[in-house]
């Protein structure tokens, strides 16, 4: 029997993952600000409170530090919390519990406990919400041993990675992009898992490897289509998991294409592409490079309000096309 595959939005795919996880395991519960009858600021939890009740879809006070700590304690106590931060920017209020507690408790206690929790972070710019509601801070978390960091770009991966994250025995930081919530794509109806720590080759190519994250995967694919018209063959890799990173897929690709462009929305300096670049430079792929490694990341400023400025603050398709063309044609 063929599996049923429907078109769902990225937000619907996330919601389906949470519903299926709660149906399968009574330990799983959701918590967050306005995730109940309001349905979440981005309607990701939607009507789940009506299906599962307020004890499993819990509205919290506006208290990110406290809520993060409650999630840690609940995980230690045998429950499986999935905590939604209303905006990823508000993670700053919960960093103590995320970085000092969730990430370190297993190690500090000599491996005697695990902290199975998921924190969901709506991230990214493009909504006109300006500097405190538009950041891409995922690289901060990837710097912390003990955390896993995932960042799905498609509805399929949104569901599969979220189910994998909820299953995972360790704390998983789950970064969603607000502009992707309405994006539609094929999603199997049955529960399935996308393994954490695996990148995906979204488009094979011979001339250049683009390693992109989140919405930049789609911009990279659009750029690759444009470049294909010019006879340039670009491979696009969706990193999907920032920690632990899928080194093998990236090194194999760059060894073959001999060129690397990293595209990410977080601020360029010390963003995730910086790590990918350094990892490749330290690998056997370095000797195969025919061009310098290049990064396209967020501008060195907070996300501005004005729409033209906001667009200019993060990589756009023409930026990727130009950078890729330069790399392949040896203009850099």
């Amino acid at each position, binding site marked *: 029997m063929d599996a049923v595959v429907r078109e769902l939005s990225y937000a619907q795919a996330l919601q389906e993952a949470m519903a299926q996880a709660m149906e399968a395991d009574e*330990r799983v519960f959701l918590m967050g600000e306005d995730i109940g009858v309001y349905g979440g600021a981005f309607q990701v939890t939607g009507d789940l409170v009506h299906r599962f009740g307020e004890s499993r879809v819990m509205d919290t006070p506006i208290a990110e*530090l406290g809520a993060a*700590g*409650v999630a840690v*304690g*609940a995980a230690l*106590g045998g429950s499986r919390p999935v905590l939604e931060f209303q905006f990823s920017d508000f993670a700053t209020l919960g960093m103590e519990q995320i970085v000092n*507690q969730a990430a370190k408790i297993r190690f500090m206690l000599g491996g005697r406990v695990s902290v199975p929790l998921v924190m969901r972070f709506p991230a990214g710019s493009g909504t006109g919400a300006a500097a405190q509601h538009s950041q891409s801070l995922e690289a901060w978390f990837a710097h912390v041993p003990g955390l896993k960091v995932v960042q799905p770009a498609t509805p399929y991966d949104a569901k599969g990675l979220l189910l994998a994250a909820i299953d995972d025995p360790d704390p998983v930081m789950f970064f969603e992009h607000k502009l992707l919530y309405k994006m539609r794509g094929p999603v199997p109806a049955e529960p399935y898992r996308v393994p954490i720590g695996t990148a995906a080759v979204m488009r094979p190519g011979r001339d250049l490897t683009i390693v992109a994250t989140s919405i930049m995967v789609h911009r990279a694919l659009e750029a690759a289509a444009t470049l294909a018209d010019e006879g340039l063959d670009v491979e696009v890799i969706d990193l999907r998991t920032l920690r632990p990173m899928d080194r093998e897929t990236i090194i194999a690709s760059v060894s073959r294409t001999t060129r690397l462009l990293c595209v990410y929305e977080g601020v360029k300096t010390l963003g995730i592409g910086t790590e990918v670049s350094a990892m490749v430079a330290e690998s056997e792929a370095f000797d195969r490079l025919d061009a310098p490694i290049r990064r396209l990341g967020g501008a060195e400023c907070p996300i501005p309000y004005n729409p033209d400025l906001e667009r200019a603050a993060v990589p756009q398709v023409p930026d990727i096309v130009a950078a890729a063309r330069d790399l392949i044609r040896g203009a850099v």
Partner: protein
Amino acid sequence: MGDAMSNSLRVAADPLPLAYTLLSRGEVRDCLRRMILIRLFEENAEQAYMRGLIHGTMHLSIGQEASAVGMGAFLTDADKITSTHRGHGHCIAKGADPARMFAEFFGKETGYCHGRGGSMHIADVERGNLGANGIVGGGLPIAVGAALAMKQRRQPNAVVCFFGDGASNEGAFHEALNMAALWKLPVVFVCENNKYGMSTSTERSMAVKDVADRAVAYAMPGVIVDGNSFADVAEAGYHALRRARAGEGPSLIECKTYRIRGHSRSDRNRYRTKEEIESWVRRDPIVHLREELLHLGLLAAEEIAAAQAEAEAEIASAIEYARQSPAPRVSELTRDVYTEPA
């Protein structure tokens, strides 16, 4: 809770304190033994540190043993605690093995955390101790989460959350108490007010006089007890635990106490007087309990001496165990950062 700060001993004609009517003589004796064990553990840890056997730092709770053991008097292994950077007493009160604690201090593989945590992160999850914490206020929301899990799992237990006066100025304290009360969770917040957050006195750091006053903002009972009186702490704990387990919600207990030693190894005691310290040395909670039990006829002098001797023997063998234990392997440096796939 009576006169919280009274130092006078009860006389036999007074009604027996509630704790002594609820605990058997054997249990009372065990509580005294544990208080002595905590004191000896810390005095010996301090000496080992001076001799260079322990590195890093440590925060001693000498003088605060009654709040740890008093709160532990009515807990079972299925109840949980969260502890603080000054947590050796909580750990022993919850039933930890001093040998594995010393092994942890010595950085040995046989320690509670396999030498990865040290003094500030000792936990004993089998006994329900979710761990000391290096972050002031770090344990407060974790305790609330553990209590939430108990409610979700329909377990008839409670969480005791130890913290200090300094933590009550942290946002985490306020967020945690609010959520615990809002959701009527089985948690007892136990403030060990030892008058100083490092060097800064409560007068210089708190807008209210008593931490217990903060309970009213979260619609829970807030009581003040003499933190150096085992019986007073145990009685307050008994009532708060009964309330928690009955699903009536959290409570706040403020134990007025004092740390005789400095904040940590770096403390030069420049912020308090010798007279103040000596006045609290005279109110030693172990001396107080010993004399109270003798006065009330609950324990004979020989039984007290035997408890002391047992504790001394246990500490001596604990140190020996720790010294002879193997060190962790450097090749296993990154073990347990993540859970290995089963």
